């Protein structure tokens, strides 16, 4: 298999496989959670579920004052990483060109220098979080193999993408292949790992809010 054939495979069959695994897995997980068949709550509802549920989804996406006990560092680096990751993912022109080909529509890209800033800050935040995870005694105790694996699977697409855009490392063909492969690995890992939190975190927040709302408690 020459480099062009390998690239063609990751742009075609490879991406199809990864997408299939990711979508199938995540649809199953979410729907399975929804259909778990909890006991019907026989108590009279003292408030609505939807309003508080959605409100909690929204509110828990931002740092509450009482949570800053987690330490400013984790909060700042964590938010930098999540925001930077999504800016890089959704506003780099090459990514938009890719999404346009899949979705049929696109949106304006950010200038490359803005993406560059986001990407470098994201990479730096991820490295800092890894170092902190390993240095901090409590975090270290709480971390298992999966935590380091998911870190790596998230880091690789960012790193290979940065190298591709900056012409660092192997030739473009090989680097693009590596970048796409790393993305496909990430897609495949999502349903089987903690990375599934990218969707379940919102349903969990909704459930918490809705539960409190049903009981008439301020969520």
């Amino acid at each position, binding site marked *: 298999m020459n480099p062009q054939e390998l690239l063609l495979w990751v742009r075609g069959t490879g991406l199809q496989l990864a997408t299939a695994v990711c979508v199938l897995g995540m649809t199953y997980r979410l729907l*399975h959670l929804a*259909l778990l068949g909890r006991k019907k709550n026989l108590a009279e509802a003292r408030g609505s579920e939807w309003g508080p549920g959605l409100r909690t989804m929204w509110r828990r996406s931002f740092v509450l004052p009482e949570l800053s006990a987690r330490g400013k560092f984790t909060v700042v680096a964590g938010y930098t990483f999540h925001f930077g990751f999504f800016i890089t993912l959704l506003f780099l022109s090459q990514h938009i060109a*890719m999404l346009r080909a899949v979705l049929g529509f696109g949106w304006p890209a950010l200038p490359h220098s803005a993406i560059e800033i986001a990407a470098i800050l994201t990479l730096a935040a991820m490295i800092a979080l890894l170092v902190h995870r390993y240095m901090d005694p409590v975090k270290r105790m709480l971390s298992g193999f999966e935590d380091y694996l998911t870190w790596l699977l998230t880091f690789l697409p960012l790193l290979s993408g940065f190298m591709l855009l900056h012409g660092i490392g192997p030739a473009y063909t090989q680097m693009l292949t590596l970048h796409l492969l790393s993305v496909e690995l990430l897609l495949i890992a999502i349903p089987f790992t903690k990375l599934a939190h990218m969707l379940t975190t919102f349903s969990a927040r909704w459930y918490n809010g809705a539960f409190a709302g049903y009981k008439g408690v301020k969520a």
Partner: protein
Amino acid sequence: MKDHDTLEHRLTQQGISRRSFLKFCTAMASLMALPPGTAPAIAAALAQAKRPSVIWLSFQECTGCTESLTRSHSPTLESLIFDMISLDYHHTLQAASGFAAEKSREDAMKDFYGKYLLLVDGSIPTKDNGIYSTIAGRTNLDLLQEAAKGAAAIVAVGSCAAFGGLPMAKPNPTGAAPVSDLIKDKPIINISGCPPIPSVITGVLAHYLTFGELPALDELGRPKAFYGETIHDRCYRRPFYDQGKFAKTFDDEGARNGWCLYELGCKGPTTHNACATTKWNGGAGFPIEAGHGCLGCSEPNFWDAGSFYTPLAAPTSNIGAIAGAAALAGAAAAVALSAADRAKKKSLQQTHEKLTVKDISN
């Protein structure tokens, strides 16, 4: 047709001055990125070079490669060199025809056994015993295998001979194959491109005449001096790629400003060739200069690498349909397993046992 006199002698006969000859050697040296001091060495070697016998076989091809080479931009000297080494057998260019033509090929193969250069353009059909292309009643495969036996080296000219090209594109009805898939025991140099750049073949031949060996090759058998960098590496529109400025259509403001053609499907980043530096038609330009993205014609499988107008970042197969099917399958699995869980729960309830997390499907 077999006067093996020196190149210098022939050049003088044709009225080519030594000055023009030295200019040509310098240009070749710089084209192949050899140190400046090499030019006199090339000149000395070329001047004394004996004319090697060359057999040129054309198989499943469109004659575009020959057209490109004979229309080289400084025809006097380059075509002379080309001419000098290629007279023994060439379908298109030779005067002889029929039995006389085949005879001259057979004579050359016998007289210069082990020493002649074999140039091939076009791919070779292999399906159904190769009957899809025959010359004088013999299949291309047969002719190639026979001619390859006595060849010192084989030069695969053009993407069809080098990588299979258009004839090998899906569904490849003739079972077309490149030279390197069929001949394994001879040095093969691939000069890919559809067509290849004329001065690249002249450069390779000049290198062979000067140093008596083929130049350094990349992993796909192409001379590194010409295929060592991508179109993207040397593209004059590269700054706009780096700045993220892309033409979105072929006639928008970006296109008029000369911005990068990546989003219009340019394959420059993954294509190794010298177009951006040597240019075409006497330096007039190359496709990207004319406002069209690179097709990637010097790379393997370029006809099957997705649309010429799809960005490199885009998938080459349908992702939406796969995602839809996967979502349906996931939903079906979730519903089925949840139903099973509920049934289990019900039956446990009837025996007054309790369903635990461990019991439900995951």
